[in-house]
């Protein structure tokens, strides 16, 4: 082979290799009380409309079920769909895992403060004290056999702490079923990375709550979910105290230990739920639980300390 031929083959190879990289497009829409960003390969972009319909349908079904449960009277029987029963089962699981700190019935109290949508206010003590006597997952009597439930007190529920993750997972399931090999489904920071990006890991940044121009961490993942819970997006300040939407069902008050809590997990529901569960627990307990659950954690404390647990730092290095 002449030098000319060798050079020609080498150059063509480089051209072909560059051409191999698929191009991506990102499309966004509003749902689940946030902005949904879908990153797809250009060849898969036609699935975008189906994704939108799917997410809107799931959202509607969860919102309607929550409405039925929340407007039901004490001891009135409410029939719910299989999907909602699954959500309630998961709620019960995370309630037990967190020893009662994480409780979807805390909405009975957070709604008095105006969460999730505002206007926010400090409710009067009389209302808070009454709500305290009602809150408790055990007050939801769920019959898993025939998909019904009754409330033994006037409680409200909100599955917002992890239903976003559940819906991201359903979307991922759909995309995989139609053969999508590489994509990101991101529901306001709770995201799943399908496959890899042109044979590389995806690069995911965790936003810094205090410094706009800085990142808390940059991680490299594939086939993994990441979710973050923070005190800075849904919160308000009253008399110098920041009241954020994550409330502890044991103390009945806003949790003020951390500014941000990020979790890596195998699915988005787990990442989403655990980022809230961990947010409610002291570091010592997070350390124990993240080992048990095999979920790396990034903590940013109120005092500005960054704590990486259960192998978070391993994801900060590219493979």
């Amino acid at each position: 082979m002449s030098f000319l031929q060798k050079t020609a083959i080498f150059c063509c190879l480089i051209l072909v290799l560059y051409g191999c990289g698929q191009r991506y497009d990102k499309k966004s829409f509003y749902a689940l009380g946030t902005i949904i960003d879908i990153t797809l390969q250009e060849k898969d972009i036609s699935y975008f409309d189906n994704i939108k319909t799917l997410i809107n349908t799931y959202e509607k079904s969860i919102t309607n079920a929550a409405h039925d449960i929340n407007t039901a009277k004490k001891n009135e029987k409410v029939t719910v769909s299989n999907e909602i029963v699954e959500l309630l089962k998961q709620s019960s699981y995370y309630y037990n895992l967190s020893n009662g700190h994480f409780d979807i019935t805390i909405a009975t109290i957070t709604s008095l403060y105006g969460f999730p949508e505002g206007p926010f206010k400090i409710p009067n003590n009389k209302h808070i004290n009454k709500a305290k006597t009602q809150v408790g997952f055990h007050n939801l009597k769920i019959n898993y056999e025939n998909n019904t439930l009754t409330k033994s007190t006037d409680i409200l529920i909100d599955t917002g702490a992890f239903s976003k993750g559940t819906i991201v997972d359903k979307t991922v399931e759909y995309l995989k079923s139609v053969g999508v090999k590489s994509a990101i489904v991101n529901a306001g920071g709770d995201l799943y990375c399908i496959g890899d990006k042109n044979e590389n890991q995806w690069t995911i940044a965790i936003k810094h709550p205090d410094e706009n121009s800085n990142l808390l961490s940059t991680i490299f993942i594939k086939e993994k979910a990441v979710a973050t819970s923070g005190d800075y997006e849904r919160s308000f300040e009253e008399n110098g105290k920041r009241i954020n939407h994550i409330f502890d069902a044991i103390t009945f008050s806003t949790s003020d230990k951390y500014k941000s809590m990020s979790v890596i997990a195998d699915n988005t529901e787990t990442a989403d739920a655990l980022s809230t569960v961990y947010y409610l627990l002291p570091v010592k307990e997070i350390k124990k639980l993240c080992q048990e659950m095999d979920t790396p954690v990034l903590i940013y404390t109120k005092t500005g300390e960054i704590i990486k647990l259960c192998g978070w730092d391993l994801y900060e290095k590219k493979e």
Partner: protein
Amino acid sequence: MKRFRIFDLLFIIFLILASLSPLIFVNIDNRHKRLKIIIENSDFYFPLTETKIINLRKYGKEMLVQIGNNQAHILESDCRNKICIRAGWIKNCGESAVCLPNKVAIQIDCEKNYIDAYSR
């Protein structure tokens, strides 16, 4: 051994340049940034190079977006909680500030992002 002719040499130079061209274009893409404003279901694009204030009233939103110095922020919004204003200036590829009540988001749009997604 055969000797190179001038056309062989030119052909080699052409091939080398052609093979490097994607790298050059990729790098140009990397630097190419613009502001994407997502209003309800529509996307609007603005250059980040000029300094100006965009009034979103013509799109039915009582909001002002300021651009300057290759970055942007939501300057004013009639929403209740002003979370979008608190998000401050955004400048990195893929970074965004979102006003959920108004269904308006501003996002730094790059042809090629170093960061694929943000968790916040």
